[in-house]
């Protein structure tokens, strides 16, 4: 059973044949609840929730593989993180450092700056049993490198931040398509009964390019949209509690309002038996009440012991930081989000998206290092490495890593040449992603970039974001070609018309 793909309305049944409607196909109350509350679950839903899979127990037709993971956390570096300074070691650049760059072909750079070859800003050293060289700036990830699988031949079809970011988050370069987390929510439903299915933890300094378009539901019903949680804000989750301007809405009044509301709504429904949305709406208020209790508990770090905080680089109680961007603060902030992510995953959130970096403005609090890689990437990458390594270790020690997938993404890479100074221009021609966790072969590097880190070594066989998305869905048990939703006459899917799961990095 799945929602009517043609219009996104939750009121319509979906016939078996494509584009044909089954007449008289009336929804059961349970089916209705699945649709209306699919993103959040419902009380009635909770009772019938399987531990995994679709909430109504009927798997989505796309659910054909044995799932390896139940949850996904995506780490997104906004502004484009440099693969050659972090993960993709290029000795050739060290050798030719400072020589005029020659790409052997005309290169269209975003800002036209093609200075000399620029060697990696930091030294690389081998880590783990696999001996994978990592840059000093991400050294904390060395402890877990044997669990990680790198993809070094990612390519993007766009060198412009906004469209490239959309491509990585939604699989399309145009706004209006659902984020990967929305598709996962739609395909798998919830594994909790009091929290959202898909949570977004933005950089506290602001949203990246496209803002909410990176995670909202597009044409999917809005309950599949990412829910923003801002751990550092007054109201970490919008409208979770009455705004302070309405002092009259105190907790006691709240309780009474909800009780009376339920009585009056039930009375109204008596003469309209058969119109399920009315019942669903009543239940949505009950779920809201449960969420008011569950969400703060999920977001607090008060019960995390000191050694766990430390693992993530979080400095409890510290409020003062230097004015200039610095590694400790970045670790603290990114670590906070990673730790919150773990707590949410632990409580049954399916998909968490963690952002590093805001819009691409100045001063740089993002990865768009046109001017100075060391200045921006230094603190950001160290902060990211501390938080991400902490997250992986913590998931592992809790036994959660085996059914959680960690995906590290950015919109594109950076050029192996400088822009004349200390910065690097955009490189949509090749960049790096890595994955870690359930079903992932550890300590492997898949796909190679060329000697310069300029393009894939095998230019005919690059890896696309659609391949990564297909891999994520496969690990969740989903055939990416079958998870579709009809919108404006097209059966849309996360992977557009592309995508092949990257079996080489899977331990299937």
């Amino acid at each position, binding site marked *: 059973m799945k929602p009517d793909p043609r219009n996104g*309305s939750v009121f319509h049944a979906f016939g078996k044949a494509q584009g044909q409607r089954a007449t008289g196909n009336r929804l059961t109350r349970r089916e209705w609840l699945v649709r209306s509350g699919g993103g*959040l679950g419902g009380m009635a839903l909770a009772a019938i929730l399987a531990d995994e899979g679709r909430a109504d127990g009927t798997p989505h037709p796309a659910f054909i593989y044995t799932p390896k993971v139940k949850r996904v956390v995506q780490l997104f570096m906004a502004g484009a993180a440099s693969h050659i300074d972090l993960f993709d070691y290029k000795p050739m650049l060290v050798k030719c450092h400072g020589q005029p760059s020659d790409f052997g072909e005309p290169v269209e750079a975003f800002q036209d700056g093609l200075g000399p070859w620029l060697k990696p800003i930091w030294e690389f050293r081998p880590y783990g049993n696999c001996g994978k060289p990592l840059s000093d700036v991400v050294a904390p990830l060395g402890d877990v490198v044997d669990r990680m699988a790198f993809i070094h031949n990612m390519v993007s079809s766009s060198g412009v931040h906004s469209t490239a970011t959309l491509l990585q988050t939604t699989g399309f370069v145009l706004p209006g398509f659902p984020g990967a987390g929305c598709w996962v929510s739609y395909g798998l439903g919830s594994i909790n009964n009091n929290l959202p299915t898909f949570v977004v933890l933005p950089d506290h300094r602001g949203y990246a390019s496209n803002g909410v378009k990176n995670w909202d539901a597009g044409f999917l019903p809005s309950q599949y949209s990412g829910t923003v949680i801002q751990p550092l804000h*007054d109201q970490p989750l919008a409208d979770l509690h009455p705004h302070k301007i*309405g002092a009259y809405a105190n907790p006691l009044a709240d309780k009474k309002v909800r009780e009376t509301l339920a009585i009056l709504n039930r009375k109204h429904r008596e003469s309209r038996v058969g119109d399920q949305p009315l019942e669903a709406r009543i239940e949505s208020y009950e779920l809201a009440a449960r969420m008011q209790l569950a969400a703060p508990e999920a977001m607090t770090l008060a019960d995390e012991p000191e050694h766990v905080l430390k693992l993530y680089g979080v400095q409890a109680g510290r409020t003062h930081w230097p004015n200039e961007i610095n590694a400790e603060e970045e670790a603290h902030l990114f670590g906070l989000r990673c730790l919150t992510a773990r707590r949410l995953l632990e409580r049954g959130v399916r998909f968490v998206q963690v952002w590093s970096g805001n819009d*691409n403005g100045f001063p740089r609090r993002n990865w768009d290092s046109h001017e100075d890689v060391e200045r921006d990437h230094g603190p950001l990458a160290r902060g990211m490495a501390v938080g991400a390594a902490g997250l992986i270790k913590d998931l592992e020690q809790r036994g959660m890593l085996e059914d959680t997938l960690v995906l590290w993404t950015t919109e594109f890479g950076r050029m192996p040449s400088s822009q004349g100074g200390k910065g690097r221009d955009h490189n949509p021609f090749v960049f790096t992603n890595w994955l870690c966790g359930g079903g992932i072969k550890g300590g492997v590097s898949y796909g190679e970039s060329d000697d310069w880190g300029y393009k894939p070594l095998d230019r005919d066989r690059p890896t696309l974001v659609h391949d990564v998305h297909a891999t994520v869905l496969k690990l969740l048990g989903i055939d990416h070609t079958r998870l579709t939703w009809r919108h404006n006459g097209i059966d849309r899917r996360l992977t557009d018309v592309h995508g092949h799961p990257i079996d080489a990095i899977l331990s299937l």
Partner: protein
Amino acid sequence: MRFKRNPQTTERELRWYRRAALVLGALCWLASSASAQAQTEKLADEVRKLLSERCIECHGAETRESGLRLDTGRGIRQGGDFGPVVQPHDAQRSELIRRVATDNENELMPPGGPRLSNQEVAVLESWIQAGATWPESWDSEEEERDPRLEHWAWQALTASEIPPPVDWDASANIEPERNPIDHFVRAKLADQKLAPAPLADRRTLIRRLYFDLHGLPPTPEEISAFEKNSDPQAYENLVERLLASPRYGERWARHWLDVVHYGDTHGYDKDQPRPNAWPYRDYVIRAFNEDKPYVRFIEEQVAGDVLYPETRDGYEALGLIAAGPWDLIGHLEVPETKTDGKIARHLDRDDMVANVIGTFNSVTIHCASCHQHKFDPITQDDYYSLQANFAALERDELEYSTDPDVQRKLGELRQRLQVGQRKREQIEQQLKAAGGESLAEIDRQINATAGGAASAQGGYHSQIESQADLTKWVQIDLGQASELREIVLHPCYDDFNGIGAGFGFPVRYRVEVADDAEFRTGVTMVADHSQTVVANPGITPRTHQFSATARFVRVTATQLVPRSNDYIFALAEIEVLGKHGENLGLGKTVSALDSIEAPPRWTRGNVVDGKSPALASGDRSGLAQRRIELLEQLGLLSLDVELRQTISQLAEAENARRELQPLNKVYAATTQKRGGQSRAIHVLARGNVLAPLHEVGPGALALFDTLPSRFELSPGHAEGDRRVALARWLSDPRNPLTWRSVVNRVWQYHFGQGIVATPNDFGAMGSPPTNPELLDWLAIWFRDRGGSWKELHRMIVNSATYRQASHPREESLAIDADNRFMWRQTPRRLEAEAIRDSVLAVSGTLDLTMGGPGWQDFVVQRPEHSPHYEYQLANPEDRALWRRSVYRFIVRSQTQPLLTVLDCADPSMRVDRRNQSISALQALALLNNSFMLVQAREFADRVRREAGDELSAQVRRAYELALGRLPDDTERAALVELAEGHGLENVCRLLFNLNEFVWID
């Protein structure tokens, strides 16, 4: 360092040479043959044999892998899902050849089978080079016609007889048929063994009409008056009153704005505001309130500037084409010459095409940008022909005037400019034709000096500001006091935002020298241009002569120059000439108040590097002299003079236009930036901007037998002629989609679902109509009655079908749970805007001010780069925000939290139908959002004012204001109890959260 040469290339090349020899041989043989036609046929026959042996197992009539069949001429010409496979006379660009000759095993055809021999490939190549002819006699006629053309939506409108009335069970209390709608609907109900519902009660009817036509609730007084009204025309009169109110246009404009994905910011990266998008929104509201005929409504929105240049509507309406998101970076920071720039512009036109054709014709066309449409008979050629209609357009602010006199003059001037522009082009073409290669060469050199080479030079570039009236300086330290006699400022050249020559050159500035690095004492003014505006000098250097001895030279911009929506100061070079004319500044230390420092292009030191566009351009005057001599020789001098006269007349008209006051601005489609020049539009293989195939002209869809799909325009036609042709094609009475589409959309907003359940897609993937006879009858009736929306509303809301009760009935639910056949009126949740507006109306705080810039319930932070639209920082008690929701300033990247959670339209998507989701986040927002809490408090204040001190009376008043009825005893008792314990505010808050408040019967 160079890349290694691919070793495979050699082998590939060899194979190519061998084949080329064979092809050449075959072509010679063809040419020499006595009967070329017979030989062509023989070659085609050989191809047919080869294709049938090697290809049609997968690409035959039945299989059609990738949508490609190679067994008919039509199939071969049309190509597959990913575009044409044969480019006649151009084997090298033909996909068919590429796929049988490639070295990439993943792409090689036939897959798995042995590779075609060189001879076989050569046969295919020869056949393509010779034109790829395929004798018509080989294909049978039925195979030639695409069966997909038989789809219901493409067929001409058919007028059906109005069905006879149905006899219903008299006890069911069913209202008699009131107009033809009821006849059509009830005939279908009888077919389905369903029956209509009885007439709804009067309270339900008036609430339904108010929410439907106004998006606002009726007051208790209006309800009670209507309930008591014994006039048999009471209902009809109410309908008339509601249609005559300006609230109607506000309500229905919002529906239209959903479909055209209107927004007040660009979206994408940096999401900059569009401060002048709103005139389009106001145009739509006015158009509905004035009941603008639909044909005119279409014409104005597609080609209003051409068809109705003397009216404001002709300009404001063009906001439709520009309504969608726009990739600012892809346009302003990446030139069209780069791949990313090409992609951005391709996608931009794609959005224009989708918005126009999707809105008016309910077809989805996007897929045809990469391959032939899979499900509908829409080819890539159709798609790119549609793009060609928009090939001269940019999204930008368009100047017009709401003053009719000024607008008339503006229209005349635009006309003069258009005529002049065309004349200019004609003369230029004549000159080009007569001047031949030698003139072209000189012009090339002149052009190269103006832009090309010059653009490679950078310079100093200040930080980017959001306002112009700031002071910024850059200065040179010569190291020691020197005798100076001239300072030359060299402007920059940068294609950013199409600015080019004179990029960053300040509007006002002064040049000073001093011995004090701080310029506090002993300052000599070299030139003061801070009092008057300096025209853009292009790349020509500005020289300032003087005589003084000093160590420091400072250039101070006192008014910055616009870049896109921001302001800068930039200079390519500052030459400081000593007494012998030597440049003392070369390589000296440069400082500045600020600088963006983006080397190598932009860095302070570049102003003393001896490079500038002017210095790079060399001897332009010499070139100009040579050009004159050449023109004299060729007898073209008088033509050249005429050209210059035309250009100066154009400039005159341009100046006159600039002086017109007052001018308004609307964010719309404009041709200003490209001077009305259409770009050449090519079919793109797989939608790849780097793989252009043949060029296409303007046109539309080849779906109807009755309407030509390509526009026959004269060779010298103006850009606007294309859009006029498209507007005429769309509004043609013979275009069945236009008329079906609009009546279906209107029907949907009245009944919750369309006769076609997919209003944006009438294609094969959409839903078929539940009542095709009714759909066509309404479409014809609407078209032939002048395309009046208000007439259509009258017809619908006066029908018995519309006036039915909405209560669910078990036996009907079992047959048709979705109510597709209209056995009741469909109960609906109010849309986001209607909920918000109703809350304001009930609280007594609704401000009904119409039109103008949108209200902004956010605080903008960091507007200079990527504005942050911070909703939580807005003051929820700011009464200026309590206007109707249609006047909201709509941000794309940070959507309004309350309305978004209530499923308001996403301005990035063309929304034909709102979702009606239900979630805990909605419940939380309606209970806890600051807007809701403030309004509940205002509501309580209003109730106290109107009902006095007695709690029970207060509850009664609050209840009837919110729900349009009085509470019964249980309801009143429950609410009084709540009020006693927690105050009236909580009662009011509760009322906004009731199902009955948001759910309309």
